[in-house]
């Protein structure tokens, strides 16, 4: 694990076209740390969803507001933090997309995908505004997609 201790940080303005920049960093970091291509892809997808939420629901597409992403690798443990400057939300009120009543909804799957592809996700909210999402993944565990976890 020659990438142990690696730390990468990027700050972007709230534009959808910047999402891919952050996603690519995540995927390259994972691949360089020895994660297979599929596993790196799914982590990149979790990051994509997190940044999209930060831009759309957090910063409400205000390009003056920033989204910050940090990636830290300790051994095989990857910690990803995505922060925005929005007003926050109640994670308990996010509906379950697997509930039959929600199955045909056109939105509401982003957090579900993050939970599926990462080991753990946790939101925290600053009293002065701003949301921080912490996502963790042990890269030694494989791709981690739900269907292959079973």
């Amino acid at each position, binding site marked *: 694990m020659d990438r142990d201790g690696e730390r990468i940080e990027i700050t972007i303005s709230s534009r*959808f*076209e910047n*999402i891919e920049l952050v996603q690519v960093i995540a995927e390259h970091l994972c691949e360089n740390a020895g994660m297979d291509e599929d596993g790196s*892809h799914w982590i990149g*997808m979790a990051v*994509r*969803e997190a940044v*999209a939420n930060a831009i*759309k629901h957090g910063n409400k597409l205000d390009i003056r507001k920033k989204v910050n992403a940090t990636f830290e690798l300790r051994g095989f443990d990857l910690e990803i933090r995505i922060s925005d400057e929005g007003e926050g939300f109640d994670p308990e009120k996010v509906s379950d*997309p*697997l509930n039959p009543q929600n*199955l*045909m*909804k*056109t*939105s*509401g*799957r*982003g957090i*579900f*995908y993050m939970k*599926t592809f990462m080991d753990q996700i946790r939101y925290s909210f600053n009293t002065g505004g701003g949301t921080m999402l912490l996502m963790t993944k042990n890269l030694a565990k494989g791709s981690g*997609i*739900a*269907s292959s976890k079973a």
Partner: protein
Amino acid sequence: MKATSRDVNGVEIVKLEGKITIGSGDSQLREVIGNAISAGKNKILLDMSGVTTIDSSGIGELVGSYTTVANRGGKLKLLHLPAKLNELLHVTQLITVFEVYENEAEALASF
């Protein structure tokens, strides 16, 4: 995202290529389906083989497209799902909603 359509025996086959992601292909997909519906097409087969990236917004647009077509008495089915899109539909159980085909002739015969 690029979309090219052809009519085969009354079925509109739409080949999608590129990304269906937030702020990009998602709105284009809605427009493609809207145009097909406006042109009186209600049997739609989406060829997904050229889709390189899809996110939850793109998945949401697929669901919305399915509902739009179904509400007009039509059917929307999927052809040639890339492996990763297949996984995304499985984990969200949407694979139980869509009819998915690997063979175009079989898909056409199913309408």
